């Protein structure tokens, strides 16, 4: 556990340094920049790009989580059971759609900017969360459900105090999957004029400035890895607390 913690702190420190003090890395990136070309991306501040990137992902993921979990709850109630096969077909077919294609197809319908990116992130994010929430809510141990009923809990209490807490690690697994995909897709969102960290990478690709590509790539990669790791930790903690681990 110890070396993992040290590595984590080191990566967070590196990420903060890359975002807040990019000038400090001039000598590191200099060999990759073209002769006399700029080494550090200065067209807009990396901090504001990071915040806008993370903001897009956060808004889309929160909205996707709310909608997907609500839908999964509805579909796993007796009244909504009729929609279960259809919703399964939609998630199965939907997940074969490449995220980039969803983004590209959102542009003709919604124009350029943050809008289509947000919609694409939201739509694509729904699927893994819905799938996992449905699995989590429909594979609860029968004995526990029976006990909850025996305690005299009504439907709402069962949902809030038994079903959702027990299904939480599985639901969180879906959220993690969709956040990681959203972080990657948001990067590509800069090709449709959303303000994200992808801008730095694309600027580097367009001017063959590898220093920019590396700078943007490192920051996005570190964000993704650290967020993924944090969600995995949370999942392990919840699983342990549920006594399923």
């Amino acid at each position, binding site marked *: 556990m110890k070396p993992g913690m040290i590595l984590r702190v080191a990566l967070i420190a590196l990420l903060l340094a890359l975002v807040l003090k990019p000038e400090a890395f001039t000598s590191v990136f200099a060999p*990759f920049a073209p002769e006399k070309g700029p080494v550090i991306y200065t067209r807009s501040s990396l901090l504001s790009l990071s915040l806008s990137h993370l903001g897009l992902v956060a808004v889309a993921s929160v909205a996707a989580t709310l909608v997907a979990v609500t839908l999964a709850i509805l579909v796993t109630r007796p009244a909504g059971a*009729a929609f279960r*096969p*259809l919703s*399964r*077909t*939609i998630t199965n*077919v939907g*997940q*074969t*759609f*490449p*995220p*980039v*294609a969803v983004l*590209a*197809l959102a*542009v*003709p*319908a919604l124009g*350029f900017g943050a809008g289509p990116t947000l919609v694409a992130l939201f739509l694509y994010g729904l699927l893994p969360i819905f799938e996992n929430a449905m699995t989590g809510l429909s594979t609860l141990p029968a004995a526990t459900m029976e006990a909850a009923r025996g305690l005299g809990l009504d439907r709402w209490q069962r949902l809030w105090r038994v079903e959702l807490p027990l299904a939480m690690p599985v639901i969180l697994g879906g959220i993690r999957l969709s956040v*990681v995909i959203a*972080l*990657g897709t948001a*990067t*590509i969102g800069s*090709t*449709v004029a959303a303000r994200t960290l*992808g801008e730095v*990478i*694309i600027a*580097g*690709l367009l001017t063959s400035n*590898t220093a920019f*590509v*590396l700078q*943007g*790539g*490192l920051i*996005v*990669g570190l964000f*993704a*890895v650290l967020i*993924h790791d944090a969600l995995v930790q949370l999942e392990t903690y919840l699983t342990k607390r549920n006594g399923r681990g």
Partner: protein
Amino acid sequence: MFWDCAPSGSVIAGGVALAAGLALGIPAGAPLRRLGGSLLGLAGLIFVLVQGASAQLDGAGDLARVSPAAGAWCLLLVLMLLMADALAQLNPGPRARAGLLALMLVALLALLWSGTLSDLSVMQEFTSRKNAFRSAALRHLALALGSLGAAAAIGFPLGILCHRNAALRGAALPVLSFLQTIPSLAMFGIMIPILGWLAAASPAARAIGIAGIGFAPAFIALVLYALLPVVANTVTGLAATPPAAIEAARGMGMTGAQRLWKVELPLAMPVILAGLRIVLVQNIGLAVIAGLIGGGGFGSFVFQGLNQTATDLILLGALPTVVMALVAAIVMDILVDLARRIPEPLP
């Protein structure tokens, strides 16, 4: 508007077919009726589209373009989902599904080749770029299938070693899942300086076509993404072999290698193939990003289209990618089912 997009006779006929199709297709119940309904609706939609396109272009000059708007695409999506749902309800066996898939692809190709849709702007974009489209399709397939092959060649042995050796498993799987979290654009970007340096440092690498941009970085990035599903599913599949089967094989006097080839791998095959399905679908999607680093494929159309705000060009890249991913998913599902069925008939 819908009603004045084409001569009124065709609009009424197509609209009635569409409405009847939806009415038959949406209510739950008899899957065959729903399948028929969705087919009828599709036929109606395409009929209106074709009639509408030629009517709109009539006397509008050579440069005029007609393209379906969001409503038509949504209807198409809804009808396709209805069809998929009805088919899922029928639950055909793997062979029947292969037949259905072939039938649908033939119908799609016939529709495209017959020229009935050639008035639509996406198809005009296609005709003006036929050669580029063909090479993009081949490049896209080469990227997706080639990286799958390379990942399988590396991933299977690695997976078998991981199955045998817990320490290696503990080290390899976290590294591979770490690789998979890196956003694709960042991964493709980071490959560029690494491969550029390799090409500069070693003439041998340059001779086999390794360069900072183009095919090589895209290919290697895709292989790296593909490794986790291959290795993880190989390990899971091998770990799930029933101990009784291994015991029986040992009792028959099989050597370790024989057990692996004749017992463990065949039993693990469905899980391994499910891993390959994930890889294939994922890589067909990710190969689009190769368009940004000069790797070719359908991505080059998508990003050209995005740069020039040319919707038809975006569609020309995105639609075949979606079709390719769907076909790959269906084919791999069929293979998984077939692999699952093999061991059972044995007495």
